[in-house]
């Protein structure tokens, strides 16, 4: 199917679910891309995974009660995030073990709840792997509104999040409420995950959070650029993924994730400064001139010495 056919389908009133799915996929991948930058930089991918699983019982309850899936997922996800944050104050059990405990427990609870609903097998698949059909209009507004709130909070608290990411102890000594900032960040991650569940599915949602941000990290050493690139990569992957899924009749969540993964691999190989192949090419071209080589890590030998001697006086 050509791209113009895809656009025709998007505008076809009989296929109204298609533009809705595109809108939700793009909105949620933008939000996930931005929030994912913190997740990647703080190394809290496992928390993202936990939250993604934790929203499942909420969705199951909402499904059984015929309520809003987004709302049900949000309640369960936020509750689990708070539980992890509170339990992790006791340092006898480490955070990753707690996450392990709660994410599986929440997922188990979800499975038990949803098995009570008649004909659950089909819906189960929809939750786990995502779907582009059957998105109610109110979810469109819910996702858009929630996304704006998330981005607003990120903008408002960016300076504080960065300070805590860099150095928790110093942030405490400055009087920043580190515990509460952690909770807000957990809740933001949860909400970003929940609004992405519809199209991408419960299992794959982590990719929307991590992959674009990780690819963006490879492409730049500037946080502001990274936080623009990640949502861009996410939105592009969502659009291309939906197109490929529609034209080849593949599962939408899986296709979007594979597109994003392809972008990540390309960045890993060809990123201007940190790419594997670019570094190799530069080494061959530059004959190992130290001044130009700014590979990650402390500068080697001469470059470092030069900077030190500069300030000797």
């Amino acid at each position, binding site marked *: 199917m050509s791209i113009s056919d895809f656009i025709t389908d998007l505008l076809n009133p009989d296929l109204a679910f298609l533009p809705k799915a595109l809108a939700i996929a793009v909105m949620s991948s933008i939000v996930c891309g931005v929030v994912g930058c913190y997740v990647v*930089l703080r190394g809290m991918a496992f928390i993202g995974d936990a939250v993604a699983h934790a929203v499942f019982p909420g969705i199951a309850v909402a499904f059984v009660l015929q309520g809003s899936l987004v709302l049900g997922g949000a309640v369960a996800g936020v509750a689990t995030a708070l539980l992890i944050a509170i339990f992790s104050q006791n340092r006898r059990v480490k955070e990753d073990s707690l996450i392990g405990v709660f994410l599986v427990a929440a997922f188990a609870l979800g499975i038990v709840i949803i098995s009570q609903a008649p004909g659950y097998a089909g819906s189960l698949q929809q939750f786990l792997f995502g779907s582009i059909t059957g998105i109610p209009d109110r979810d469109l507004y819910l996702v858009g509104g929630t996304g704006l709130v998330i981005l607003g909070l990120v903008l*408002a*608290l960016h*300076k*504080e999040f*960065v*300070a805590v*990411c*860099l*150095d*928790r*102890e*110093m*942030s*405490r*000594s*400055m*009087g*920043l409420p580190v515990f509460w900032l952690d909770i807000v960040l957990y809740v933001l991650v949860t909400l970003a995950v929940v609004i992405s569940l519809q199209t991408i599915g419960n299992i794959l949602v982590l990719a929307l959070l991590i992959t674009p941000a990780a690819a963006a*990290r490879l492409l*730049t*050493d*500037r*946080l502001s650029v*990274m936080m623009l690139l990640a949502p861009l990569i996410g939105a592009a992957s969502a659009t291309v993924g939906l197109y490929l899924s529609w034209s080849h009749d593949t599962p939408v969540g899986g296709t979007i994730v594979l597109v994003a993964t392809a972008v990540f691999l390309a960045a890993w190989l060809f990123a201007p400064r940190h790419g594997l192949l670019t570094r190799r090419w530069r080494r061959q071209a530059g004959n190992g001139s130290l001044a130009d080589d*700014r590979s*990650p*890590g*402390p*500068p080697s030998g001469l470059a*470092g010495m030069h*900077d*030190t001697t*500069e*300030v*000797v006086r």
Partner: protein
Amino acid sequence: MRALEIEQLDVDLGGRPVLRDVRLNLDRGELVGLLGPNGAGKTTLLRAILALIRTRNGRVLVEGRPARPGRSAIGYVPQRHEFTWDFPISVEQAVMSGRAGRIGLLRRPGVGDWRAVGDALDRVQLTGLRRRPVGELSGGQRQRVLVARALALAPSILLLDEPFTGLDMPTQELLGDLFISLAQEDRAVLMTTHDLVAAVDACTRLILLNARVIADGRPADLQDAELWTRTFGVSATSPLLTLVKAA
């Protein structure tokens, strides 16, 4: 008024006594080395001064007032490994992050904030590298970024936790000179260190700590070997004593 007064400070961690009856004063212009073995409570003392942990007994006064996070004029320079060096951020932004608490919620850095960051970078001679990502700096440069971040708050007290660890001798000497001149510019500087030679060389005063203050005085006054063997729990023939005497 003294920059820092600590009176009869007791601190327990996990039910165990870590600091007992610690008393010490710090004046502007002093560079004081806090020495002691691992587990002596050096970092705990710094955290108590920053009011980050609950004390069992005693008082910490910063410029005459009880210490409070974000309110007291203390610049904190943690150990280098506390900082996330692979974060995609430039030197000047890293230094600016030290002002996040002072700028306040929902506000962006203003002219005054950038001026403070510029002055701090000038002071540690990193102005030429201010746009460099922090991950590309050498160990000595990283230490100076952390010092600049603390200086960006224009503190009257500077707390340095193990600033010399993992650095070569020329870099240590440079940093030692920097700390001396920072103290001479009307600041009180307190640093923990395992580097006895550098400490004896640079500091105006040494405090030997092992849960209690064992000794407190000018390096020249701490010749008694017994003080050192008691603090560090080493034998009378330990090379540590030769080291201190030689320095």
